[in-house]
């Protein structure tokens, strides 16, 4: 599921552009950012729309996978 993130965040979560790299980010950080996007606490352009598509459990699973990226 988290491999879909690579479209904007780069292959294996390593971005070649201004959008953040995900590789190396801890699970808790991803969960917090995604939850804040989802609830609107963190303003966003694209990620707020995307984050609303995922349940808390799915966000946890995505974060779990991203935390394995080196």
């Amino acid at each position: 599921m988290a491999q879909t993130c690579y479209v904007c965040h780069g292959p294996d979560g390593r971005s070649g552009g201004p959008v953040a790299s995900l590789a190396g980010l801890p699970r808790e950080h991803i969960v917090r950012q995604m939850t804040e996007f989802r609830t609107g606490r963190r303003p966003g352009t694209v990620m707020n729309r995307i984050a609303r598509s995922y349940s808390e459990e799915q966000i946890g699973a995505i974060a779990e996978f991203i935390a394995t990226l080196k």
Partner: protein
Amino acid sequence: MAATRRFVLGMAGAAAALGTIGRPALAQGAAGKVVVIGAGFGGATTARYLRRANAALDVTVVEREERFITCPFSNCVIAGFRHMEQITHGFDGLRKAGVNVVKGEAAGVDPAARTVTLGDGSRLSWDRLVLSPGIDLNFTGLPGYSEAAAEMMPHAWKPGAQTLLLRRQLEAMPDGGTFIVCPPANPFRCPPGPYERVSVVAWYFRNNKPKSKILVFDAKDSFSKQGLFQAAWESEFPGMITWVAGRDGGKVESVDAGAMAVTTAFGVQKGAVVNVIPPQRAGAIAHAAGVAAENGWCPVNPATFASTRVPGVYVVGDAAIAGAMPKSGSAANTQGKVVAAAIVDSLAGRSPAPPALFNVCYSLVTPDYGISVADVYQVNEKGITPTPDAGGVSVRTPTALNERKLEADYTYNWYTNITADIWG
């Protein structure tokens, strides 16, 4: 029905999908031979992610061109702020990933013998076949339009010589000329593409030929990101662009390339430059292989993208009927990842994990003004549908975040990252 039960597994299913993705390579078991037709967004992604998931797989991509030119960003070439080399990608990245790249054109498929025949008569055998042929233009779909007519009224809907032809025509057009764009009915490749093209050409006109006009004769009554595009046309290029909906007489009945004229219910309109985007269908090999339906596109199982018509064959990208997913590069990229996982599971005798399907389509209005639509899809007995109360288009009224500029930056970022994911 087992499939239905699988869909309601919800989170358990998503975790299972992650399990598949997270498992180390080589631990996947079953080897096999996979042939992929086409090294574009769908095919190259599939090939690469097959090798990532299981390095024991023998993966061959058949591609007729030496290098792949992307449709995304070809509008930037037409508007003069990108060069062809910047949208052209070689296949060394695929080769480095252990994919065999064969130059050739697939001519036929024998599903019983599990072989594909190439144009030179050679034959490749497969355990699983993936077709990612993209689109063919239907030159008989619009009276007066033909391959010869396209030399005068370019479609520029397959990038390359056509892209450069349209660019040259716009450069040669005198200030005050009329540029006519004729988008087709649904479904077609890149739903926001014609309107992005209108936008960035208007930007080019504003800077270089400000007295020029753009007339859009549309077969449709509505289009992708319409509210955002039309608001941008008004604020960025006031008075330059006229869009005529199909129901208001926008549907093109015929074209006359010699006269550079387009006939609609309104009568005959001449343009200095005319861009005709004709109706489309799945690439020829999909029809030869028997996976295309009467409507010209390929029905697939929405969870695996396996053809519903021919066993052992999968279809990804523009050629597939993918429910609510648009025919886009992002969609083909995530579909390729789904197909790769489904093939690995199928060769190992496992039932497929739930698919993760996503799309984002960025469009540029000017080089500094971007908009987007993004959706995460659900797959269930209704097929592929967007997640309710989520996703969708950019904010209607920009805030202090400066969304339009940010999304322009994200558009370039997307191109860099998705092309690295596929061909890098």
